[in-house]
């Protein structure tokens, strides 16, 4: 068994342009996903919009550079995540395929040493 982080990447501008009913439907789908995969779920949350992000980079001399915005400038940003437990990658991918992400997709990464 291993733990995997499933990061949900979404295009925020697509959400902003969408009808409010789309967000409502998405919320219901996440509830359904959580119910169907409860035994594998170890955590998860929705994140506030990416304009609330603050990035901190080490300046290499013991100091920090704090900037407004996400770490990488991309169209799709992380909008939420799940931590799941699975026997192997195939099982993790099967679960990750069920994660609702209508405005983007998900990335699956193993969590080391848990």
């Amino acid at each position, binding site marked *: 068994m291993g733990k995997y982080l499933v990061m949900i990447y979404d295009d925020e501008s697509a959400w902003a342009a969408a009808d409010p009913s789309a967000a409502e439907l998405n919320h219901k789908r996440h509830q359904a996903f959580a119910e169907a995969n409860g035994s594998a779920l170890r955590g998860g949350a929705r994140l506030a919009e990416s304009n609330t992000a603050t990035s901190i980079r080490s300046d290499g001399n013991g100091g920090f550079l704090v900037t407004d915005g996400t770490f990488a400038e991309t169209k799709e940003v992380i909008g939420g995540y799940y931590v799941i437990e699975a026997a*192997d*990658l195939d099982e993790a991918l099967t679960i990750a395929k069920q994660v609702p992400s209508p405005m983007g997709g998900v990335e699956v990464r193993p969590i080391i040493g848990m």
Partner: protein
Amino acid sequence: MNTISTGAVARAVQEAHESEWAFVLAATARVAADLDLAEDCVQDAYAKALVHWQEQGIPRRPGAWLTTVATRRALELRRRAAVSERKLPLLMPDPMDDAEVAAGVFPDDRLRLVFTCCHPALAQEAQIALTLRLVCGLSSAEIAKAFLVKETAMQARITRAKHKISQTGIAYRIPRLTDLPERIDVVLDVVHLVYTAGHTAADGDGLTRPDLARRGLDLARMVRLLLPDSGEATALLALLLLTQSRQSARVDGAGQLVLMEDQDRTVWDRSLIAEGLELVHEALARPAGRFGLMAAIAAVHAEAERWEDTDWAEILGLYDLLLARWPSPVVALNRVVALSYVEGPEAGLVALQPLADNPALSTYPYLASTRAELLRRTGRDAEARAAYEEALAFTSNAVEAAYLARKIQ
């Protein structure tokens, strides 16, 4: 027992390397629970074979001898690692235990190995490199040479792929039934690419590429044996056999390219054709997939005694089906050629027009050379020459370039 010559032993080890490598490594990987450890143990077993077979004679079942030696060493190293509390990354949850290894009866794990090397979470070039390394037993240097990459780059590619397998928990097992068709397609794509990389010959080095084609054929035979219920696996082997049957007719005595139209069909390999045709009929008893349709097209060519006898209407029908299932610009281009033999070169030129605007084909030499052929057949020689020149500018294959240069003169 010192009557065996060193040469005979070396030959036996070499033979066992070619025919048994995948079986030995697949079984050892299950015991070792780690691909690197398994590879080391198998290489060690082959090295030991050179010495032991000289002293004790060549075993009756070389594969079983090698597997026993490699798995014993893997078990021993794993135990030692456990004692020193060094953690080895676990490849899968069900390694064989000591009793099974001691009994010397090993299950055929080659499918596990193939599906692990061709896992869709790996990039396609990594799938190909891993398959050649772990299933075929080629060295990084050999694979690098075949794909015209630096050895260090190929080594890094293989290391990265193995790292991803162990870190992400890609399981050493046969996929579940629901995933199987999709996963088989990935495997067949890899085998097909290995063969075609070898088939489109001549980058100046005449040796490494035919070897790649042979490896592709070997892989196709193995996959068909391991997946007897897959119509597509059967079809892929048929396609490769039928393609290979024309190999010696593709180049003439002077090393010049000969198109199928002008090939001496008496030198086509009849035994490969017979085997290929039988497999095509077997594969087409089920609904045809991509390789089934491609094999069927190859079969129509193989069955024509002369170029003039080719059943182009049948081929065009098959390309229509293939294009619906696999809408690639290259398939569309081949369909145009078939169409030009059914409805004439003018109709071919009309059908070619929309393809000329496809960016995926903009530097594809066969697009320009197809247009050149069609123009030549309609008697527009000046335009044909210009199109041949365009094709020549895009080709990097010396034999093909020489062919085009002859056409321009």
